[in-house]
């Protein structure tokens, strides 16, 4: 903190630039700008959409945000290590099909269900992470291959007729009028909050979280600090695959049925939530930012569609939001400064 004194003298001379420094520091720690945007969009929603203020319409928005947020859990963690996971849609479909068809058809029982939902994605995702790290393959293409493999398993296991329907208990999780232990909140939101708190705590407070941030910030430095970065990558991609499987099960409950395209919109929506929230490849970032990003994206979509704009306009707006968000905090260093 040797700079405190100089900063004070700057602040008397140029109050504006000092405010900018303080703001950009705070923005890096917490997504203030995104929260402000959420408030603006909320006001817009209350003014332009009659009936938006009702309890159930807000809960409905939160259910949609929960789906985006849950599919972005794995992506957040992978992006923090500097990679990208394109296998999210494949594991979403595999998760949905596992719950609806595979576990019941093969009569796997509770133990088999755990193996199917945890061990299979852990092996596939872990293999992707291991191979990428060992052979220095770009995660973008490797997870693309894994996406195809996961989709293929889902298709083969259901004989190509991936038109599964959701069991009733799963549907109940994401009904806006649903309740959780007597609370008037659908279970999926409670699940989202639970997972969100867990992921945030693990990232912020545990040695595992610190190893992950260190690996993302500088792999060679992390290696020198005796962090086994290869196993960090294995764990990260395995976790992402498991998270996508769980997200797939929840999505199945929300959509009521599943086919091979169930996960497609959520790859880029999840990635957009991570980026808009302010998590940068290789860090800094955390899951709270992704949650705020997911809420912001969903809210903007709702307001736009409620005001008669088409899904096409929403796509364009999403692109513009990503650009604006990144311009505010995601710019890279100038080449001149890296020489």
């Amino acid at each position, binding site marked *: 903190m040797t700079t405190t004194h100089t900063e004070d003298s700057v602040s008397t001379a140029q109050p504006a630039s000092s405010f900018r420094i303080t703001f950009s520091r705070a923005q890096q720690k917490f997504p203030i700008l995104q929260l402000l945007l959420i408030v603006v969009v909320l006001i817009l929603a209350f003014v332009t959409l009659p009936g938006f203020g009702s309890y159930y319409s807000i809960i409905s928005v939160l259910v949609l945000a929960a789906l985006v947020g849950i599919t972005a859990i794995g992506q957040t963690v992978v992006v923090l290590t500097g990679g990208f996971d394109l296998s999210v849609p494949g594991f979403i479909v595999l998760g949905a099909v596992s719950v609806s068809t595979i576990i019941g058809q093969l009569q796997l029982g509770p133990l088999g269900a755990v193996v199917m939902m945890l061990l299979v994605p852990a092996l596939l995702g872990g293999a992707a992470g291991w*191979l990428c790290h060992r052979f*220095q393959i770009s995660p973008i*293409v490797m997870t693309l291959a894994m996406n195809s493999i996961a989709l*293929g398993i889902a298709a*083969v296991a259901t004989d190509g007729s991936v038109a599964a329907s959701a069991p009733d208990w799963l549907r109940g999780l994401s009904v806006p009028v649903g309740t959780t232990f007597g609370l008037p909140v659908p279970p999926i939101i409670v699940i989202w909050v639970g997972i969100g708190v867990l992921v945030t705590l693990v990232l912020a407070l545990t040695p595992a979280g610190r190893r992950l941030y260190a690996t993302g910030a500088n792999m060679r430095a992390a290696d020198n600090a005796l962090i086994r970065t290869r196993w960090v990558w294995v764990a990260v991609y395995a976790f992402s695959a498991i998270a996508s499987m769980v997200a797939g099960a929840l999505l199945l409950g929300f959509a009521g049925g599943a086919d091979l395209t169930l996960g497609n919109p959520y790859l880029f929506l999840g990635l957009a939530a991570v980026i808009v929230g302010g998590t940068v490849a290789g860090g800094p970032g955390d899951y709270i930012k992704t949650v705020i990003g997911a809420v912001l994206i969903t809210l903007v979509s709702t307001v736009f569609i409620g005001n008669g704009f088409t899904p096409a306009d*929403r*796509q364009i707006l999403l692109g513009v939001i990503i650009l604006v968000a990144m311009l505010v905090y995601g710019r890279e260093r100038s*080449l001149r400064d*890296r020489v």
Partner: protein
Amino acid sequence: MTTITSGPLSGTLRLSDLSLRRRPYLLAGGLSLLLLIATVIVQPATNWSGQIAAFAPLAIAAMASTSSVLGGGIDLSISPVMALTGILYAGYLFPAGLGGIEALPILVALGALVGLVNGFIVVKLRLSPLVATLAVMFIVTGVNLRLADRPFTVTGDTWLRVVSGPLGPIPGGLISIVIVVLLWYALMATAYRRSIYAVGGNDATAYSAGMRVAAIRILSYVFGSVLAVFAGLSLVGLTSSASATTSSSYLLVALAAVAIGGTSLLGGRGGVLGSILGAAALFLVQTLLSSLGVPGAALPLIYGIVLAAALVVGAAIALRRTKR
């Protein structure tokens, strides 16, 4: 510098020229050759003219993706630009009587504009290439959806059909591939070639050496988008239709073809020959599997395993090369 040489054009062919380490595209080439032989054995009556016509859009899309990847970037907007080209031609220019060759400069200018925007965002606004082109992908896809609320069809014999259909003994699609390859090598015959490999290899070093890194990078995005226009036109020539749903179908396969072809996604290594061969391998896997009568459900599984295996073998060879 050995990795830059694109082929054994000069002197006698030595055994070391066949080394996979020096010529990473040979892996994709060998794989394609094996698949080709297998396909011929399994299905001797394959309509190769039609197959090459169907292959052309993927091959050109892979070449288009190679351009920005060589410079250390990536372009996710290649596939939406292809769809945009098709929609504008089939839905707007053709009905307006501009379906002739005069459509080409209009569409190329538009593609160059998208590439310019990409390059500007990446280089001048300094956003990560993946994020920047993802945003542009969203925007162009949205524009596509707006412009084409229904699929458009092209009727009658246009010049596109001539280029992508069989012309005498020349199989369809080959002409469009050759045109794009010629464009690529024309650009690579200039000083741009050395510049783009230098920038992709290490941009800070290239900058220190006085290269105009910003201009070179922007040009790589512009050139990629222009090639995407050609890919889009060859797709229209093939299917005589265009719709917004094709916006993402070539997005990731083209990148996979680039990676299998031995072009490093970190930039500075590889070339267009590898991308064509990589695209051929990915295309032939599907042809072979379907002529073997493999049920459609198993296709993505086998496809994914082949892709992963090819990536690992290619990367293992590249790794030994860099360690030496």
